[in-house]
């Protein structure tokens, strides 16, 4: 569907812009042989509403999240970084990617009202919007060891 392709491109381009600018990492779309996100991980989510309703999420392992936070703060991954700071960093990444998607996708997306991001920690986490919802998932590799998954779940309001 054209709409899904549009959101997929906006999601990938938005994520790349945020990571290049704020995390100083180049994101590449992952190939099929990319590792899975296993074990302890973080899921940053932000919901939106208006013509479309749904959520955008960012998911990665704790070790990856720590690298992201360290880069954003100008620290080394071996430096002491609290879980709160790591979670905060992923929340900000989620917020900024949503902002970038809004400015890149359809004119409807530009008018979306967004929530404050939430970040949860656990294993095998996933967002769901129920049957019939559109779903776009982009998996990226900031380095050879890690994978960051960006997902955009949506449906027409009132549907």
């Amino acid at each position, binding site marked *: 569907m054209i709409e899904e392709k549009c959101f997929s491109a906006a999601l990938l381009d938005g994520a790349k*812009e*945020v990571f290049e*600018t*704020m995390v100083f990492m180049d994101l590449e779309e992952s190939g099929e042989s990319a590792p899975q996100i296993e074990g302890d991980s973080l899921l940053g989510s932000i919901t939106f509403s208006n013509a479309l309703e749904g959520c955008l999420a960012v998911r990665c392992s704790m070790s990856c999240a720590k690298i992201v*936070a360290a880069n*954003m*703060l*100008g620290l080394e991954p071996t430096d002491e970084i609290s879980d*709160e*700071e790591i979670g*905060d*960093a992923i*929340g*900000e990444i989620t*917020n*900024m990617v*949503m*902002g*970038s998607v*809004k*400015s890149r996708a359809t004119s409807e997306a*530009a008018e979306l009202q967004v929530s*404050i991001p939430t970040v949860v920690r656990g294993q095998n986490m996933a967002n769901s919007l129920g049957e019939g919802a559109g779903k776009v998932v982009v998996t990226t590799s900031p380095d050879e060891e890690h994978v960051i998954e960006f997902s955009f779940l949506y449906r027409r309001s009132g549907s």
Partner: protein
Amino acid sequence: MSKSLMIVDDSATMRKIIMRTVRMSGLEFERTEEAGNGVEALEKLSSAPVDVILCDINMPEMGGPEVVKKVRELPACADTKIIMVSTESSQELIDGLISDGANGYITKPFTPEKFQEKLSPLLN
């Protein structure tokens, strides 16, 4: 002349990131302050105004738009420059903030060059 800066954002991590980015931009401030929301910012400003405020929009207790209005009511902050820093990019919102007294807007994600571009003219 020494310059002072306040960063207002409900995320402590983002406040650190903004501070780091300001340093990377080459801009120097003799005094820096932080506040987690508008209420805290106004409390600090009433006793120690600053030259520049970098302010988020979506914050608990008091958000950026109200901060702009309240700061413009403070005689001690008559010369304070207010730059909004946010992911929000609605032109209507930006125009409203400028109309209420903000001096500029920086969208997240941001670069050191963007801070240099927006702040240098205001500081000179």
